[in-house]
């Protein structure tokens, strides 16, 4: 039973990954971040260039003003109401707090986390 289960998981995951690869059309999807539709629960999110810029400024400000979060390698962009965080952090605590702060400021806007965590790992034996 154990062997059957382990034999099954690997292929299933491989199939899922393969499907994701095959189904992925990055440019098309990337060009069309989800827009807020009237009547949806998220209709209160204003999607304008000015609103995007304002959200970006607020997120940047809250990260910079925090006494303990090092956001010196982070960039913030807001596109069509979606807040995108990019860059690197070397501390997991920073990453979690950053995402919390951004979420607090961005309200109902979606946060896309594209931050690379660079952990203190060294695999040398």
């Amino acid at each position, binding site marked *: 039973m154990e062997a059957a289960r382990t034999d099954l998981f690997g292929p299933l995951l491989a199939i899922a990954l393969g499907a994701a690869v095959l189904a992925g059309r*990055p440019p098309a999807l990337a060009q069309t971040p989800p827009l807020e539709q009237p009547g949806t629960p998220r209709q209160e999110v204003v999607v304008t260039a000015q609103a995007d810029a304002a959200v970006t400024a607020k997120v940047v400000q809250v990260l910079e003003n925090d006494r303990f979060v090092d956001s010196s390698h982070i960039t913030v962009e807001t596109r069509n109401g979606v807040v995108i965080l990019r860059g690197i952090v070397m501390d997991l605590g920073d990453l979690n707090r950053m995402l919390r702060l951004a979420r607090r400021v961005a309200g109902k806007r979606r946060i896309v986390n594209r931050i690379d965590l*660079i952990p203190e790992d060294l695999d040398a034996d």
Partner: protein
Amino acid sequence: MFGTRMLRALAAVAAAVLVVFSYPGGSLAQTAQTAQPSDADTQARMRIIQQRIDDLSRQLHELQEQQSETAKTVSTSSNRLNTFMKGFFGTLDVSIDETTKGMSGMVAVPYSLAPGVTSPTGPFVISGGQKAGPYGRVSWMTMMSSNGSNVGYRGSHQIGTTDVDFIYQVATAIDMAAAPGLQDTWTKSSNTVMGAIGLGDTYLGFQGHGTANWGKLMLGEMYMPYKTSTDRLNPFSGQLGNYNTIMGNSGGDNRIEFGTRMDHVIRYESPDFSGLSFDVAYALGQNPDPNSNLTSLGSVDCSGGNNPGSGNLFLNCDDGGFNNAFSGDLKFEIGGLYLVGAYEVHTDVNRSSDGVGANNPYYAYLYGLGPNSTVKCGGVLCSSLLDWSDFQAYEGENPGEALAGSPEYNTAYDVVNEWAMKFGGQYRFDFGLTLDYLYEDLHRSLPAVMEFQNERQRTGDWVAIEYDFPSGADRIAAGWAHAGASVGDPGGQHNYMPAGVGDNQANMTTLSYWHKFDKQFTVYADVADMSNDGNAHYDIGAGGHGIKTDCHDATHALFIDYSSAGPTTWGGCHPIGFSMGVNFKF
């Protein structure tokens, strides 16, 4: 600047003169009664003065424009310098540890199959007197450790006017507490040099941006998606008791089989699809040997880490070297929820050295049958399971050295694929609490006849809970890892207990506290406890902490051969460690 002042002064003087000359006061008019100039002369003088003022104003304006232009250039240069400097990043970390291997007083006795028994599962009998106990300082010891300190530089460059950026990163791990160099000791064997550029994720690549955000493609040396996708579930990175000691670590000890940085990697990272994203990577094996017994072309160590001959074995990559590797992950993140699944496979993994010097009675039985036996084991000749031809050739040339040794397993049976999969998730509450869970399944695809020594196939679990205090200055985390029982055991432990196959589970508990003084400077305290079953030998420092605190004692020999006379491994050890350190990031 001086010219401007002069011009301003001249302009002021000229203006004053103009005012004086044009002032319609009565006294001047009155004193001019005697030599009254004509109105035409006065107007002519005024025109000349006005013209001079206009000239001076124009020159002043031109100078101001030149100064403004110079300021712009300085500002642009300053921005470029700022951007350049921001590309540097790094972590400096040193801790003082008080650790023990937890093996003092352990005893070992040799076992063999009971008379007439030919099954790997026994029964077994004690076949000799008590063996030597753990050698060296294996109890509490104070140590200083560098803990994955690293520096790096990363940047990007827009290619022409396209929507594609050229991206790059160079990084290295640095040793803060000791001099850098090769790591060829009896307990740590690697040809990599600490502090050398490239001992860290180092790559170049391309990335779409703007409306052409098709993702990121990278070429170089780097960690694989299987590892990076769950780094955020490991709050104890670089510390004693971080989850790498068990998760991705198929055999215990210090090496993280499914969490190692690989050479010659092609990696693609997808953009975000409404919260869904994936990464795939392929590491070119570049190994000319069909049994992965050599280092990959272009690499200094065997695939997966360690140099040829690690652990005092013969100068081969037969302690886990592999050829190609594929790794991928599928991630979903929305709000505070993060879900992840990952898979990685290593092809043609060579572990034939697991037999050398093994204390497994079944291995002794195979060895005892000799090279010419016609006895069958699981449908094949028992003698074919061991590599007699190489061993006999070596024995012929070096009879003294090989005498104490024994052959490797036959690569025809012990060079197979290994794969791992894991899935888990994280939930990050807004009030500071974060919960992590990860399940893992490790697999080595051995033929049935070799399963008796398969210690690479097991499950694992990881649970962690973190809390960030509201101020942002303090953080606390606790974690628990579990290594399930493996299918078999090669019996490399000095005190191997054959009746306890499956008696090699382990449980690790970690507790850490961090305090930040500002954005970059942190102090921390950490405690980790690894409880191993009788045949398990997991440590508390693998995969990040500088000093590993593993289950090896200080036994050593003066030659490299078939005897595996290096550090002796003790199953059931109980490593415990306390650590306090400082950490600075930039």
